[in-house]
């Protein structure tokens, strides 16, 4: 046990370094949601209001997507210490990602302890350590822990909630169930998918503990309901369902009549739902969104595939065990809400799937090795070498290729644009930005809120009322011949040094 804890500490430290090293610069640049989170957090920290002037709001309007509060308020904390930096925006995610590695260990340890099948209990005694090690090196989890993604924090609190629930089942301590409820509530206010998953967890706990038979339970039920109520009510408003409306899979199909909807909607939903279990998504290409992954990499390592399948098989064979039940519960429940939206599959919305995937792979590995009668050491060595190679292969692509190939997915270029504009701002009366640099305003707000600017369309002409005032015009690179003077160029950091934007003086 002591040895396991020492190894766990090493694993958590490794996980932390993998998530923390160079996190300010890779992913290369803040993407728009991160910039928006950072800007709102900074405003809260300095003036106690969000970007729209609302004091300490529960929902952040942002780009109209109404962000949930937990991540933004946690960035307020990190910004108070680190200032308005990329690191401050990403640190809550790094910390939550690292902490999840420890939580999965304790969660599985407790689950095994509660297992009634003593033979199985003995066979999987190394499962917690193996699962936490695999989570520490999971490319899926590392990737989202290194960006300012709310889902990482949500996954942490969600898993913590389950661990505390198991703790309560074990020792019936009041504090465990209170903390469990608080964890699920925090997850509920962290990221959209937990609006469903946390409620589902509450329902599960309610039925598992048969709270309807115990009068004292109402001391817990009422506060939980009251604290969930703002979220439930918000979800029913147009603002609360805005994100759902804009990404709904059903709005993409041209079903006109009620019959067409009845015929097609369930099929579209099923198509999306099963796409989360597609081998192509899990092991081949991921979801294809540059911000979510390295191109040509799946969410799980290819070497894990046989053990993942073996794990599913062995879990099916232990159909009545608690570990099978909870693993499949996670597998089945996670995409339920994510499948309503497009694109589907979506690595971000399904991040909690990494937990059952890691458990299944670990179970597969353990049973595979235990079933080997001969050459066990040789098999372990070969597996370890292949895993190591693929892990280093991933790191190589993450640190060398990813910043060069996917920088535009992360809003790279915008920071440089703001910093370069800052150099010239004193010389110009007006600074205008072409709408094609669509996300420029939020980056200006985040990196330098003191630069005044106006956003204009590409057909913009200098108004006569501006007379001879000097104008700095920021626009993307395109064949422009307006007789103005080019004063600076922003290059991308990719291998071809493509032009991202240009700064012109308008006469």
């Amino acid at each position, binding site marked *: 046990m002591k040895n396991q804890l020492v190894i766990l500490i090493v694993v958590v430290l490794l996980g932390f370094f993998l998530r923390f090293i160079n996190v300010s610069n890779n992913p290369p640049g803040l993407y728009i949601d991160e910039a928006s989170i950072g800007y709102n957090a900074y405003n809260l920290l300095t003036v106690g209001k969000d970007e729209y002037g609302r004091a300490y709001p529960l929902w952040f309007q942002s780009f109209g997507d109404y962000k949930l509060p937990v991540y933004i308020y946690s960035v307020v904390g990190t910004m108070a210490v680190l200032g308005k930096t990329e690191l401050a925006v990403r640190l809550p995610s790094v910390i939550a990602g690292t902490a999840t590695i420890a939580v999965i260990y304790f969660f599985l340890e407790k689950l095994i302890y509660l297992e009634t099948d003593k033979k199985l209990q003995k066979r999987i005694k190394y499962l917690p350590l193996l699962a936490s090690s695999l989570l520490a090196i999971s490319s899926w989890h590392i990737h989202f822990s290194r960006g300012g993604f709310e889902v990482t924090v949500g996954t942490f609190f969600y898993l913590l909630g389950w661990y505390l629930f198991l703790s309560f089942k074990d020792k019936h301590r009041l504090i465990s169930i209170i903390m469990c409820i608080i964890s699920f509530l925090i997850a509920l206010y962290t990221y959209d998918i937990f609006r469903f998953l946390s409620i589902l967890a509450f329902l599960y706990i309610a039925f598992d503990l048969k709270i309807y038979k115990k009068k004292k339970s109402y001391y817990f039920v009422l506060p939980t309901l009251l604290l969930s109520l703002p979220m439930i009510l918000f979800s029913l408003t147009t603002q609360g369902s805005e994100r759902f409306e804009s990404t709904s899979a059903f709005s993409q199909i041209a079903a006109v009549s009620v019959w067409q909807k009845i015929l097609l909607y369930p*099929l579209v939903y*099923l198509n999306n739902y099963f796409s989360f279990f597609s081998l*192509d998504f899990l092991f*081949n290409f991921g979801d294809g969104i540059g911000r979510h992954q390295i191109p040509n990499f799946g969410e799980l390592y*290819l070497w894990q595939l046989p053990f993942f399948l073996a794990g599913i*098989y062995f879990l099916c064979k232990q159909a009545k065990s608690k570990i099978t039940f909870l693993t499949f519960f996670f597998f089945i429940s996670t995409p339920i809400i994510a499948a309503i939206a497009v694109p589907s599959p979506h690595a971000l919305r399904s991040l909690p799937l990494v937990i059952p995937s890691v458990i299944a792979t670990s179970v597969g590995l353990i049973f595979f090795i235990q079933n080997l009668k001969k050459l066990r050491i040789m098999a372990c060595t070969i597996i370890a070498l292949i895993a190591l190679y693929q892990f280093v292969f991933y790191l*190589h692509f993450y640190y*060398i290729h990813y910043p060069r190939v996917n920088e535009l997915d992360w809003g790279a270029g915008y920071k440089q644009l703001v910093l370069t504009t800052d150099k010239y701002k004193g010389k110009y009366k007006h600074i205008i930005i072409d709408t094609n640099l669509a996300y420029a305003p939020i980056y200006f707000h985040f990196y330098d809120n003191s630069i005044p600017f106006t956003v204009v369309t590409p057909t913009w002409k200098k108004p006569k009322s501006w007379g001879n005032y000097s104008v700095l015009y920021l626009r993307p690179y395109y064949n422009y011949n307006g007789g103005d003077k080019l004063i600076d160029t922003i290059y991308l950091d990719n291998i071809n040094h493509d032009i991202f934007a240009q700064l012109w003086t308008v006469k």
Partner: protein
Amino acid sequence: MDRKIKILLISITVIVESLTLKSWLVCKNFSDIFHFSSTHIALQLEDFVHTEKGTSILLTRLFNNKPIDNILYLSRLYLQFWDVRFGSNWFSFIGYFGIIMGVYYIIANKKRNVIHWLMLVILFILPWIEILISPSFSLLLKSLYLWVPFILFSLYGIYQFLSHGVFKRRLIIVCIILVISAWWLIFLNADMQRYCLQ
């Protein structure tokens, strides 16, 4: 009685699975996502090496070389064949479910014999014909070795599924999947353009 129901269900399954061919017969071939191409490997390698400008040659060689790229590329092509999105179109949902059950019951069977192993080996080898050779004849002909054996195997899987556990419960599961499969094949057939060259 149970036996008769099983036979009836298997017959319905055959009909539903046959529906998949309807949409495939308009295709000239499978799309290139299944076909091995050495040119693709060469171009990809060139692209990777170009991106690594400034990196030590040792690292570049270690991670960008033909053996590794070939292994990754081939395994990707192979996995596409077993992907649920392709499977739901090519074998139908019920077919895909049957194949998974077939594999499960063969592996779980402690008295498995040579025939069982042979079935598995054939099943897992057949997609390589398309991946490596990519014969350019019609999909109807291809279905003889890429569809028929899988459908037969799926029927075996469904039969095994119905023969284990609580019959009524399993019967309901198979019926639900059958209805979804038929519904799917008649009304949606999503992602066909990804797999089919018209």
